[in-house]
């Protein structure tokens, strides 16, 4: 009798020992894993901090040397003796103008495609069309640059732009915006058009997503009182999704502002503000891409300062975009 109870006691003790060991190892791996995930999450914050700090450290000499003047100086003379004169005006101008023109082209197209996909498109071809548009976003930037350089640029310069120039040659203002003095493969406008193609999928994808948050009952009600398709889109879908659409447009703008390789190939790398969109220009990212590898001293610091400006600019735009999209999500969730 006693032996049996002792045996079972031993077994119990052995089991509980085992359990304790197993539990202990579980607790350990549990803690480790939870710690690892937390560390990784904080690493994301550190990454942003690291980017900002390294940019500020790198840009500091240029900030000290040029101060606010940097933003309003057009001259870019890195080799000037004894001290270089460097100003960000030309690349800022090129960045803003190229993104603006790209948005001007891409927003109507993107929204048009989204309206077609959500309101008109037969179900069977909706997915292939969406896929085709979204694959545009997958094509690497350098491929766009190459295609723009070899195909689109020469096509525009040889067949399209001369007739635009000829059409407006006697109209004041327009003839300086579309000046024929420098029409070539490489220009601000050609870069803008490539940018427009590149951001089109972002606008379309987000617009399709936010359009589909419109409760069907709203649209059905509008159709029910005899609205045409356009009236439903214009009076129900667009007002309901305005915040989201603007958010998507801002997100695309953030992309356009920072796009590098495609633009570097076809904008012509010229630090001159000419006022003509058919003239070569430069952008912040193109200036960095084409000059950074060989820069030194103040020149390099000024390029990093350009990078910092670009980061701040895109940060503001992207943050606004996310804010708007978040508001929409909250509303959709509520």
């Amino acid at each position: 009798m006693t032996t049996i109870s002792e045996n079972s006691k031993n077994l119990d003790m052995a089991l509980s020992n085992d359990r304790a060991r197993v539990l202990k190892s579980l607790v350990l791996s549990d803690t480790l894993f939870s710690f690892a995930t937390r560390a990784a999450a904080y690493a994301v914050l550190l990454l942003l901090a690291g980017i900002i700090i390294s940019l500020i450290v790198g840009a500091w000499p240029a900030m000290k040397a040029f101060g606010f003047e940097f933003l309003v100086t057009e001259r870019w003379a890195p080799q000037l003796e004894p001290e270089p004169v460097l100003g960000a005006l030309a690349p800022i101008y090129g960045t803003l103008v190229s993104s603006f023109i790209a948005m001007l082209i891409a927003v109507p197209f993107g929204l048009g495609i989204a309206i077609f996909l959500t309101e008109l498109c037969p179900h069977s071809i909706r997915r292939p069309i969406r896929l085709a548009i979204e694959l545009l976003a997958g094509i690497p930037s350098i491929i766009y640059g190459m295609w723009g350089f070899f195909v689109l640029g020469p096509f525009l310069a040889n067949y399209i732009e001369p007739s635009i120039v000829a059409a407006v040659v006697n109209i004041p203002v327009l003839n300086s915006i579309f000046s024929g003095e420098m029409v070539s493969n490489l220009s601000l406008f050609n870069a803008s058009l490539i940018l427009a193609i590149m951001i089109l999928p972002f606008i379309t994808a987000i617009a399709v997503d936010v359009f589909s948050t419109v409760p069907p009952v709203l649209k059905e009600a509008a159709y029910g009182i005899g609205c045409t398709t356009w009236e439903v889109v214009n009076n129900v879908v667009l007002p309901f999704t305005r915040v989201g659409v603007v958010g998507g447009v801002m997100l695309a703008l953030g992309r356009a502002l920072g796009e590098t390789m495609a633009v570097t190939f076809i904008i012509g790398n010229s630090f001159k503000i000419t006022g003509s969109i058919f003239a070569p220009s430069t952008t912040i990212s193109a200036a960095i891409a084409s000059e950074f590898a060989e820069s030194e001293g103040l020149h390099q610091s000024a390029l990093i300062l350009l990078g910092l400006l670009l980061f701040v600019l895109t940060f503001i735009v992207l943050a606004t975009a996310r804010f708007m999209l978040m508001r929409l999500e909250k509303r959709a969730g509520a």
Partner: protein
Amino acid sequence: MASYAARRRNSTFIMGLCLAATGIGVVWLFLILYSLLINGIPGLTLAVFTEMTPPPGEHGGGLLNAIFGSLLMTIIGVGIGAPIGILAGTYLAEYGRHSKITPVIRFINDILLSAPSIIIGLFVYGAVVVPMRSFSAVAGSIALAVIVIPVVVRTTEDMLLLVPNTLREAASALGLPRSFVIRRVAYRAARAGLITGVLLAVARVGGETAPLLFTVLSNQFWSANLLKPMANLPVTINNFINNPDANWKQLAWTGALLITAAVLSLNITARFFGASKDGR
């Protein structure tokens, strides 16, 4: 109010414009693919995969060193970035779901997701290239990892949030510790989504050029030394386009075709992977 017929006409006209926009939007993809195929296929020989990049003015040669370098750096970049991304995404969706810091991290991650990749290049130049005093494949891989992280964080979080809580509750009720619930249950349920995220990240960095320009540079020869500049496809294409040499131009087109084919098929695979699970 205008007559119904006029309103109908107006609507039809605008919808016609939308249809035209769609046509024009889709046509770009085919124009670009057409150029790539027409110009890339003539150079698509076995030598592209077996020979090194040639000096200018020579015939023949291939892209072997560049393809190898791109594969290696992408693997290392994703190898570093994906685990960090998955862990961070796990924190956002599981441990930190109700933490105050989570929305902040998510917001910052979304910013990083769309941050210009040239900025990442500047960052890695300052943080890795300058201290190491050398352009290197390591620096390039780190730059790619920095781009991978936000992509994977985002998809991981999204996918884990799709896993029904009842699964987690059931597993917890069996007495499984939290980390087991996540690793054995939530990961398994979201596996297709997680793989999709990693594939999309690979597709994203596969063609990245800007962050490599001043982190790895490139290399005319074969090099497998991670601490030295290494040949890679995007920068090689960049250099070859910027050159009048006909042989280089041909190789650039062929390289561009290869990259695009790889990136687009990854995109499509990832999409079908994700879609097949969504539909379940």
